[in-house]
């Protein structure tokens, strides 16, 4: 796996192909270093690595705290490693609250939500990007306009709508309201328009209808855009807090990870050791996702400059 992420960004606007990124040139194409330059570079490395160490220290400290007995969390002077290393905290956390349910709910909501978003965005993106129909451009403008409305404005009436449907405290209320945002449709439309029309014409002449050419020609070409959209959608469902907090009543049944995690701190006699174990566990899936899909993430940011949130 390549660690270097950013050369991929240069391939971003080459929408038609998944062309491999330019090989990374360590020197960055600059002139050879002088002696003074080399000394400077050493100092630059030290500065950057010290900054990085300070930056990750909260997570590292949280990880080691998750391995301490609770009674030693705030010992003076502070220690990194307690009198014993309690891996059992990572097991006990599952008995502390319905933690496994939270994780299960988060995976279910995020994966289902992502699938809905993909289905809706690719089909609508195809209609807006490659089919001709009356009123297309006017409807598209309305789509884009909805991107301006912030979540804070939406959650209050949305809660009311959920009450009318009788959907408060259900999975569909966690998944559907934010599965139809215009962002995905916009992203897919932009991508689809970059695919040469001749590719589809040939199939059309041979008698393939839009459904066939969508499924067999356009969609397979859009793998990288679909990947980008999936990652961002998954992350935004996984990390979403405000809406689940509002629409979930019975946390033990429908609570997602952020809501469950937040409710931990309210439980009897704050167990910091278990809270830290829970926090570390909840960081694992997204961190793995970022490491595995870093190229697509960088692409997505460069492509749209937009993220989940």
């Amino acid at each position, binding site marked *: 796996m390549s660690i270097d992420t950013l050369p991929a960004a240069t391939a971003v606007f080459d929408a038609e192909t998944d062309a491999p990124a330019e090989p990374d040139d360590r020197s960055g194409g600059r002139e050879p270093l002088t002696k003074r330059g080399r000394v400077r570079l050493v100092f630059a490395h030290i500065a*950057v690595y010290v900054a990085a160490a300070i930056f990750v220290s909260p997570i590292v400290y949280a990880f080691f705290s998750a391995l301490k007995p609770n009674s030693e969390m705030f010992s003076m002077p502070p220690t990194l490693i307690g009198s014993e290393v309690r891996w059992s905290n990572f097991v006990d956390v599952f008995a502390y609250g319905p933690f496994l349910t939270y994780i299960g709910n988060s995976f279910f909501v995020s994966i289902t939500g992502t699938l809905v978003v993909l289905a809706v965005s690719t089909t609508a993106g195809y209609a807006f990007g490659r089919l001709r129909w009356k009123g297309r451009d006017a409807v598209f403008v309305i789509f884009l306009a909805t991107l301006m409305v912030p979540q804070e404005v939406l959650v*209050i009436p949305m809660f009311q709508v959920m009450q009318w449907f009788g959907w408060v405290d259900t999975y569909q209320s966690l998944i559907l309201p934010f599965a139809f945002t215009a962002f995905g449709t916009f992203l897919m439309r932009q991508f689809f328009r970059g695919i040469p029309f001749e590719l589809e014409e040939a199939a059309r002449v041979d008698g393939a209808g839009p459904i066939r050419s969508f499924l067999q020609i356009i969609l397979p070409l859009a793998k990288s855009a679909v990947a980008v959209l999936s990652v961002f959608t998954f992350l935004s469902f996984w990390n979403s807090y405000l809406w689940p907090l509002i629409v979930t009543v019975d946390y033990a049944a429908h609570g997602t990870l952020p809501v469950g995690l937040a409710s931990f701190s309210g439980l009897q006699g704050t167990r910091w050791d278990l809270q830290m174990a829970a926090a570390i566990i909840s960081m694992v899936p997204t961190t793995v996702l970022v490491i595995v899909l870093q190229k697509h993430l960088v692409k997505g940011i460069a492509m749209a400059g937009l993220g989940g949130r």
Partner: protein
Amino acid sequence: MSNTKQIPRRGTLARAESRQALGFVSPALAGLALFTVVPVVLSIVMGFFNWPTFGEKTFVGLDNYVKLFTQSPDFWPALRNTFVFALLYVPISVGLSLLLAISLSARIRGRGMLRVLFFIPVVTPMVANVLVWKMMLQPQGLFNGLSQTWFGVELPNFLADPQWAMIMVVMMSVWQGLGYNMLIFSAALEQLPESVVEAARIDGARGFRMLWSVTLPMISPSLFFASIMTMITALQVFVQPQLLTGGGPGNATQPLVQFIYNQGFKFQELGLAAAAAWILFAIIIVLTALQFRAQKKWVHYEH
């Protein structure tokens, strides 16, 4: 861009395509209507009503808006807190991530790994990040513990002191959001045209001069974009104060979104909450428009 030929077509084929297009687009249209358009309209309506979660709804005209500005004890402080947060957060966050992106230049070994590292808090559930910071900021926590052991200095109780609480909310938010803008700036820096940089170097531009007169103007579209997005997210801040300080002490760190949340879902005053949400939206629109106006002065586009 595309090569759609806009030849007017008639006949069964075109009609069939229109019908199929409708099939493709209708799930998105239905969803957007139900979950965005209806709520937006409903929200406007709710703002003019006394709208409890359960029970009788009564039309009150502009009363909710008047009430917010004249009677609601927490509204003005929430407005102030939101602005204070944004004023502190946006420059620090944009500045630090720019510095970081520049520092992680092509000559730094392992910069790919470092970028991933700085990006981890961005994608981690914010609740988890807040919990970690909350533990460190406890009176017996890591910060105070280290300070007492190393320097014998007792630090203030960060989360219980009105001024410090806001500073800590900002600090935690900067930490958590740094990696996002850093990646945007990194991508922009990576795409600087080599020819321009080379020409400037031949003309003798080095170090700070190069940065100020060549690099920054060339990535100014990214800077502009990042500042706007960062400002919008700053005005919508909610999770960090809600979980780190509970909006307190008192209402010292309660931002507008938390005020809206409390009105709507704690006090069941959905009408008042809807009105406050529209005020927030108006503020965001106005500030964004102002930034777009100001961009002509400092943002350089190539085309």
